[in-house]
């Protein structure tokens, strides 16, 4: 954990203490601070905007209720991502993980700025992630996207570190074999790789 992470966690703990005391301003600061990463994290589980918003609110409703029980066994961000992960899985069971038809999304709600390079990169990533299981997508997002350590991911997903390593390994191998062909390059399949 670097200095920036330590500083961010100290701020989060202070906000959590204030939330435990009923400070809604602290809740608002925490909500806005985590909204972007939670949105991106949950978009790996579902493409439904309404479900993502519901899960984020479920997550912070629980964080608000349980703020006083946080004992600091992990970073606050790890704690919150764990709550979001469990809420996300619950939402998947309730709503399914079928993506929403893009045509049904109002145009004014689509990002106004999406340069061509980003769109190409998103398409490339999206096609690769389609080949992964939900757990593999979650691990890839948490490690590469959010930057959590494998130990943190194990806490978030409530599983052994070895399981996280295995999921990351299989996800990387699958992406390595799939992504070049999607980009028009020949796949570089190494013999013996899964």
């Amino acid at each position: 954990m670097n200095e920036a992470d330590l500083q961010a966690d100290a701020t989060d703990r202070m906000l959590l203490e204030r939330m435990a005391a009923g400070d809604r301003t602290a809740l608002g600061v925490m909500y806005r601070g985590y909204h972007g990463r939670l949105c991106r994290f949950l978009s790996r589980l579902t493409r439904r905007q309404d479900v993502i918003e519901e899960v984020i609110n479920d997550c912070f409703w629980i964080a608000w209720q349980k703020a006083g029980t946080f004992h600091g066994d992990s970073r606050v961000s790890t704690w919150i991502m764990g709550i979001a992960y469990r809420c996300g899985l619950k939402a998947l069971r309730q709503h399914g993980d079928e993506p929403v038809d893009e045509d049904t999304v109002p145009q004014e709600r689509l990002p106004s700025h999406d340069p061509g390079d980003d769109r190409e990169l998103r398409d490339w990533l999206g096609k690769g992630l389609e080949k992964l299981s939900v757990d593999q997508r979650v691990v890839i997002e948490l490690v590469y996207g959010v930057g959590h350590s494998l130990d943190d991911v194990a806490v978030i997903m409530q599983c052994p570190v070895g399981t996280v390593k295995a999921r990351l390994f299989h996800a990387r191998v699958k992406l390595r074999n799939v992504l070049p062909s999607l980009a028009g390059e020949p796949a570089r399949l190494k013999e013996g790789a899964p």
Partner: protein
Amino acid sequence: MTFTMDTNRDCARAWEAMPSVLQESASSEQNAWLMDHLAHCQSCSEDYAQQERLRLALSLPADIPVDPAVGLKRLLARLDAPVPKPVVQRVRNGWLTRALAAAVLLQAIAIGALGARYWSESNSPAYRTLSQASAPVPAGALHVVPDASMTLADWDALLHSLNLQVVGGPNDVGAYTVVPSGTPASSAAPTLQKLRATRGIRLAEPVASVP
């Protein structure tokens, strides 16, 4: 990863090191070692370039627009709203308690009714034990055993002449229980003598009140 014999051990090490180097959480030595390996290994260099692109793609903001202001407003409204579940639970508990109380009351009534019926039946059992007193016998009752040769007409005439009527029998030994009809109990003795004197009557005895 299961590398074949022709891939060297350094490539496996490089594969393991890539995530932490990309996260910038690797030590400077590990970082320097990987960079040195990539400079000499085309395959791992391509893998690393792909992993870098993957990380870049994953770091892009979400492409699904969710307005944080709207979400926060809904969350705050939710915090102010009464929690529905405990209310439902209380209602369920209330109904459950009432239903259980009604069931217990019905059971109590049923048990009471059955007990009352049992108690009333037990006051007049269909049997009598040897320790119990004999069934009450009317005052002046007599046991009379007519002879087998006595005709029914003679028996009827005798009872009619003595103002007697049969209230029981014949029992196992052929005895009838007779009582005076409309005659006071004090006149039982002459009736008894007349019976004994009558031809065809083998036995005539007053019924003792206590055996």
